[in-house]
């Protein structure tokens, strides 16, 4: 069938099962947007800043909607996607970004709104393409989606010159992709799995340290069964949150810088650690050569480059987490470790998660949201103290329930990602736990939420500070609060949200918290923001200082 490049792109998206595009038009995207004008089976959501489109596509993918798609025009449109693409890259989230580009004959001439976006995104995409021949369009789009979602997922960008959008081609969608340099290993090596089972059988103080790979491979059931069978203590990273039910007796919460004391002690004392779909990030390990140094590691990851990158494991297993865990489950012996459990229980008693002092506490607010949502809501976070309080105080039940910019730590991620998550999961309640700093980084997406009747709920934990930086200044820089007090100039969020057409509330006392949350939960057709005026100087605890060891952990 003959069609234009723009029509071909839409047809490819259809074949890939795309239902939603988050985008923003522009000169170099006019032919594609002209096509979208008549498209009824793919929903286009107009954002108010391209960064919002990339984060929304990311939130859509993380919430379980499949590969997220975002679009932007050439030049500044494309560069505005960059932070969102880098966020997705660091957290291995499958998105496909389509950017407009000046016509092929104008490339390299510093044309109006021209930028080398494939060059710019080289280190932050799994792969990227510049279309130079219109007949390559179907094959390129097919490959892009395949690469984004297979193996270790990640973002792929397609740069689409305007003349390629207008060129006429004979459309034929390839059945398969041929990538001789790309064959992800999904099945673990049987010999390695055998030896891993032996090592786990010999363990007296086993621990599981799970990461985002558990969620992206949907391995929750396998991990649960394995942990119960070998009676291992389980700690899940920020990215792994939800990959193991947090109300389970074996679950110790999050490890690392702001993890629970008992998770950190458990890793420190464990003799065998099964590291699953995780990458030994510095926020987890602290000082690397002191990290869990009594343990032998089994490291399962689909990306061979993660194995041995930071920690050399006793047993490396390259493969898909779900498949490897299932294999492992069939080989390990059922064990009980009452003494190990007792030790951990003592740590739990000695160093419980708690908060102290008076005033409206952020921990209390997150607990109240947890109570009101029965622990079922999709929780999206911004970055900073709000992110850590959300992670610490909202225990999750399932994968794809907790969405946070873990690797890149992108302030402004939460709200647009929450919009994406709500679009992917219209029947779920979505909360963005935000700070007064980060919410201002993409507040313009309030217009997107209002226009599309997206009932995202935002809890701003407002302390008038860039709180996490303020905390570090207090603790490590003699309380010299250099440029972290943002009280002056911060808008009245209630008025601001109302100006957009959303619902705003302000809460300053504990007694008002539950009623405000209830009111927010009742709203089904528009966004809502609650401005919680919290105790200003609250710190996130416990804390292992950057590059520190478990012995340096500050408990409260």
């Amino acid at each position: 069938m003959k069609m234009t490049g723009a029509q071909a792109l839409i047809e490819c998206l259809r074949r890939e099962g795309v239902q939603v595009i988050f985008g923003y038009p522009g000169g170099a995207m006019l032919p594609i947007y002209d096509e979208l004008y008549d498209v009824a089976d793919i929903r286009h959501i107009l954002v108010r800043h391209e960064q919002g489109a990339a984060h929304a596509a990311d939130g859509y993918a993380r919430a379980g909607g499949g590969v997220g798609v975002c679009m932007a025009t050439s030049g500044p449109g494309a560069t505005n996607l960059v932070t969102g693409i880098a966020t997705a890259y660091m957290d291995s989230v499958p998105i496909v970004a389509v950017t407009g580009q000046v016509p092929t004959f104008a490339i390299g001439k510093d044309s109006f709104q021209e930028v080398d976006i494939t060059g710019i995104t080289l280190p932050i995409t799994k792969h990227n393409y510049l279309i130079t021949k219109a007949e390559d369009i179907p094959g390129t789009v097919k490959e892009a989606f395949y690469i984004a979602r297979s193996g270790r997922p990640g973002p792929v960008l397609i740069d689409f010159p305007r003349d390629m959008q207008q060129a006429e081609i004979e459309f034929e969608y390839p059945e398969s992709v041929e990538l001789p340099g790309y064959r992800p290993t999904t099945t673990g090596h049987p010999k390695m799995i055998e030896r891993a089972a032996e090592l786990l059988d010999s363990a007296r103080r086993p621990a599981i340290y799970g990461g985002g790979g558990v969620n992206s491979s949907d391995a929750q059931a396998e991990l649960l069964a394995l942990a119960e069978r070998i009676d291992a203590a389980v700690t899940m990273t920020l990215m792994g949150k939800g990959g193991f039910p947090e109300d389970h007796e074996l679950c110790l919460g999050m490890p690392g810088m702001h993890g629970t004391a008992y998770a950190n002690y458990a890793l420190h004392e464990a003799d065998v650690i099964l590291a699953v779909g995780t990458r030994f990030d510095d926020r987890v390990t602290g000082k690397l050569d002191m990290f869990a140094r009594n343990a032998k590691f089994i490291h399962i990851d689909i990306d061979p480059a993660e194995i041995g990158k930071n920690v050399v494991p006793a047993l490396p297993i390259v493969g898909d987490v779900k498949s490897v865990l299932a294999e492992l489950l069939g080989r390990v012996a059922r064990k009980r470790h009452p003494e190990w459990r007792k030790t951990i229980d003592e740590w739990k008693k000695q160093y419980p998660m708690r908060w102290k002092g008076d005033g409206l506490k952020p921990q209390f607010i997150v607990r109240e949201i947890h109570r009101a949502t029965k622990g079922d809501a999709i929780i999206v976070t911004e970055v900073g103290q709000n992110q850590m309080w959300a992670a610490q105080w909202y225990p999750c039940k399932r994968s794809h329930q907790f969405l946070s910019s873990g690797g890149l730590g992108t302030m402004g991620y939460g709200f647009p990602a929450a919009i994406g998550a709500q679009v992917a999961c219209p029947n779920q309640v979505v909360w963005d736990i935000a700070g007064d700093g980060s919410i201002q980084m993409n507040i313009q997406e309030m217009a997107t939420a209002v226009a599309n009747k997206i009932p995202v709920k935002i809890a701003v934990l407002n302390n008038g500070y860039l709180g996490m930086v303020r905390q570090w200044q207090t603790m490590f820089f003699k309380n010299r609060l250099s440029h972290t007090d943002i009280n002056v100039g911060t808008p009245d969020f209630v008025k601001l949200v109302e100006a957009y057409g959303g619902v705003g509330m302000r809460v300053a006392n504990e007694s008002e918290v539950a009623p405000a949350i209830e009111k927010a939960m009742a709203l089904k057709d528009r966004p809502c923001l609650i401005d919680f005026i919290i105790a200003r100087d609250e710190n996130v605890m416990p804390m292992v200082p950057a590059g520190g060891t478990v012995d340096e952990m500050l408990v409260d």
Partner: protein
Amino acid sequence: MKHTISVLVNNRPGVLARTASLFARRGFNIDSLAVSTTQDPDISRMTIVVEGPDAVLEQISKQLYKLMDVIKVLDHQDEAVINRELALIKVNAEAGARGEIMQTVSIFRANIVDVSDRSFTIEVTGSADKVDALIGLLNQYGIREMMRTGRIVLSRGGRTA
């Protein structure tokens, strides 16, 4: 220690940039780099000389494999290989020194490819050690200008990548 690795890649625009960018952002230092097409017009071959401990080399190889356009990575460390470099060396050649330089050139089976009243330009091919040795000997006359290609390598015998 020094490693010589061969990387077979798709012959597409941007592949060199992808590879070089990977080395740069992961902090791997390239000693030399040579790229050319192969017997298969769709495939290019890069020979990269890189210094680092084995663990770093393993990481380089794994990271290279993550690039979609990389088909194969070979570390030639323990393998019999033919390795060659080409150098052009412009050296001072005053009247009194000419005979001696010509003898040295002949011992190294190098060629004088350009002559002026005060200089010779010498072309030498061989292993890096051989090229180093010749440069070492020519230094005493004063090297005015010099250029070396990157190393290129093929396995000995019938084996192919």
